[in-house]
């Protein structure tokens, strides 16, 4: 008998309040206890873009098609698709046996309604939507896209991981895309247990016994999504040290985002596996406000970039072990087809003295630099403090403001000068997935007032992006455009890529079937 059991029994007998613990040993063996990266506050993957909501949605809902480990789009709910000779009609056919959690069959009209709601919020599909004449159900199992012009990227949009197109029953999918849905009925491998949802504490899913997985082996997010565990319980633990202790003690089975500082301790524990699960790293971004001095001057932005050494940033976030991070001095995700460093020479200087000279030559005259650091986001905070250090060493007039993330995301929307509540530099992070293609690369956009915060206005970047959307299907042509984009972005330097770090996960050694994927998903995983 374990000491804890003994103590528990002793206390129970002493007080005559004997009762079973929350989970019996058998139940523990059939339950995967997970510490997710964040609190699950919303369940609607269209209404909010929160990654934790998307990960929850992968359990509840299914996708028409999905990305495999190589990033290729493979059929998931659909048997396959047929494209007409002229490329203007795509017909998708659903697999047999698909059913929602309420027992209703998944029909083509459900897919059409789900696509229609999703496309109103997905930036990728919004770019392609002008090419779409109609999406319509042909019968119960077939639906089609009718296009004004050939648009091969339709498939990538439908199968993407960043903002996936999840299929809901038509009556739910008819909800306005800016209102939250009130039901969680999907056709995915797990069913959400709404009665046990206590936001901030716990979220629970149960195996969908009627789910019919594909027969292929799991491959990224493609292949068979086999639910191998009866129950998945997310417990929200906000304190990283407590999370580490809970994993070490076996009170939890899986920790999605362990703090890098605690990885050595976890690795020393023989009962715990620490490995990279996500296929891409997390990329750091330093963003300038191009509307206000001093960073409305591209030469000053370039001067700061000359002083940046990504390795310093990445050590600050992920520690000294070079296996935990990677230098990537271009705007596209490294080791993906469009990755290149054409024109990235400035980023390779890593020279504070030359940066000082460039700053003087650019005409910097002591304008205040307001840098906002989010104290409640350890990684982004570390990136911010590194830039603050560079700005100081360059002799610039820095005001470092520490704020919480909620304050930062409101203040970053301000286009005012710094003395009227504006800002000069902010930082953020992004999944590598989101930076692989120009069509959804948020930080590359340079369409002035409609660009991401900082609002760069570089018409050539926008022209190249539009050209890529049109010709990106041709690999050689797509590559040429990507190189031109990198060159333009480095010349304008409205954001500084800060490299990437790996975000490993940790799980107990008795957790089986863990596989690499573009997102954290829990099918195929069991416990021995």
């Amino acid at each position: 008998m374990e000491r804890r059991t003994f103590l528990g029994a002793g206390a129970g007998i002493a007080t005559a309040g004997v009762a079973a613990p929350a989970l019996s040993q058998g139940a523990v063996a059939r339950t995967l206890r997970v510490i997710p990266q964040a609190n699950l506050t919303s369940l609607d993957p269209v209404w909010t873009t929160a990654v934790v909501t998307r990960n929850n949605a992968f359990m509840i809902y299914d996708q028409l098609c999905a990305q495999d480990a190589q990033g290729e789009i493979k059929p998931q709910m659909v048997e396959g698709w047929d494209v007409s000779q002229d490329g203007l009609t795509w017909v998708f056919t659903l697999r047999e046996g698909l059913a929602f959690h309420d027992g209703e069959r998944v029909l083509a009209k459900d897919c059409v309604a789900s696509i229609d709601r999703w496309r109103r919020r997905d930036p990728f599909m919004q770019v392609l939507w002008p090419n779409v004449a109609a999406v319509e159900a042909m019968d119960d199992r077939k639906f089609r896209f009718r296009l004004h012009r050939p648009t091969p990227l339709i498939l990538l949009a439908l199968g993407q991981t960043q903002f996936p197109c999840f299929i809901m029953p038509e009556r739910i999918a008819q909800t306005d895309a800016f209102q939250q849905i009130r039901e969680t009925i999907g056709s995915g491998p797990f069913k959400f247990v709404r009665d046990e949802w206590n936001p901030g504490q716990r979220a629970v899913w149960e195996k969908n016994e009627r789910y019919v997985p594909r027969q292929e082996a799991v491959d990224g997010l493609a292949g068979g999504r086999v639910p191998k565990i009866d129950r998945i319980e997310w417990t929200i633990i906000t304190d990283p040290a407590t999370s580490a202790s809970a994993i070490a003690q076996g009170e939890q089975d899986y920790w999605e985002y362990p703090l890098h500082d605690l990885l050595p301790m976890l690795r020393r524990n023989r009962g715990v596996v620490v490995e990279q699960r996500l296929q891409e790293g997390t990329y750091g971004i330093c963003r300038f406000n191009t509307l206000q001095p001093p960073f409305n001057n591209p030469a000053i932005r370039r001067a700061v970039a000359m002083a940046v050494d990504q390795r310093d940033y990445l050590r600050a976030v992920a520690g000294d072990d070079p296996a935990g991070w990677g230098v990537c001095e271009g705007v596209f995700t490294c080791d993906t087809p469009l990755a290149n460093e054409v024109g990235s020479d400035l980023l390779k200087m890593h020279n504070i003295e030359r940066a000082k000279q460039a700053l003087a030559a650019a005409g910097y005259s002591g304008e205040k630099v307001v840098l906002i650091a989010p104290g409640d986001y350890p990684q982004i905070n570390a990136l911010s403090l590194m830039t603050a250090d560079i700005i100081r060493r360059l002799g610039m007039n820095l005001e470092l403001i520490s704020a919480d993330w909620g304050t930062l995301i409101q203040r970053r929307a301000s286009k005012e000068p710094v003395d009227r509540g504006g800002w000069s530099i902010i930082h953020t992070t992004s999944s590598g997935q989101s930076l692989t293609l120009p069509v959804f690369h948020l930080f590359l956009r340079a369409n002035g007032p409609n660009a991401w915060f900082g609002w760069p206005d570089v018409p050539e970047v926008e022209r190249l992006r539009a050209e890529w959307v049109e010709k990106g299907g041709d690999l050689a042509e797509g590559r040429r455009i990507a190189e031109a984009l990198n060159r333009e972005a480095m010349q304008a330097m409205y954001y500084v890529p800060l490299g990437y770090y790996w975000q490993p996960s940790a799980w107990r050694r008795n957790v089986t079937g863990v596989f690499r994927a573009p997102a954290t998903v829990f099918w195929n995983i069991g416990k021995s």
Partner: protein
Amino acid sequence: MFAYIVRRVLATIPVMAIVALFVFSLLYIAPGDPAAVIAGDQATPEDVERIRQSLGLDRPYLVRFGEWVFRILRGDLGVSIFTNLPVSLMIQQRIEPTLSLMVVTLLLAVTIAVPMGVVAAWKAGTWIDNAVMSFAVLSFSVPVFVVGYLLAYIFALELDWLPVQGYTPFSNGFGPWIQNLILPAVALGSVYIALIARITRATMLEVLQQDYIRTARAKGAGQRSILFLHALKNAAVPIVTVIGIGIALLIGGAVVTESVFAIPGLGRLTVDAILRRDYPVIQGVVLLFSFVYVLVNLAIDLLYTLFDPRIRY
């Protein structure tokens, strides 16, 4: 007395109204935008604006405040912006862990601290007194989260006697319930033990100098009787006051303790809501806390009459 209680209860209404106005106004002017949090990085400004409209965040201050007050008067705390769940349900889900933590902490603190203070006063100037006061200084000086980590390391990680984190509802049995509460209650209670012990000692020292104590000794009363019947009862008013203040402070301390031990209580609910700018939740929880403060103060005032018959309202 009854009239006094009624008067005090009625007096809570303007207090609550002022708190409500203050909280609403503070949140209105505070930086932060829940629509931007919901919309995420990829959203266009138009998308953020549409979400803001759908949440009613674009309406004027007075309209929003009026609607909120009207709802509160009907007993409706509103719906969380993020979870779409009623605030009252979210509070209901979180109240048991916080209440449990506070009750166990308070029981622990009073049970340990009062005898400690009494003994320290009785043995004033001896090593016992010095030891008690040293403990008090140490407990005051070490932050709650440090005590928490230390306890978790020793009793959960090293000795494996107690769980590291979590909360088991009382309905699952006293054993599992108390197992999860021991470490957080000790961590949170250490400060209150110190506080109550010090006040008890100081008050007891003063009371023990009084003539009636000398008289009791002269009449041959035993030491225990003198300490606990004659002296402690007369020293009770300041001690009860400090315990009352302690209850109010516990709510603040619970925020840290709940985070360290992953207890899903009201403290964490409040912090999460503040970080996300979930206004209805923040407003609901702060109103509840203010109501509890007012009630605790009332209870303390009434307790005075029990310990000191000279006090009459």
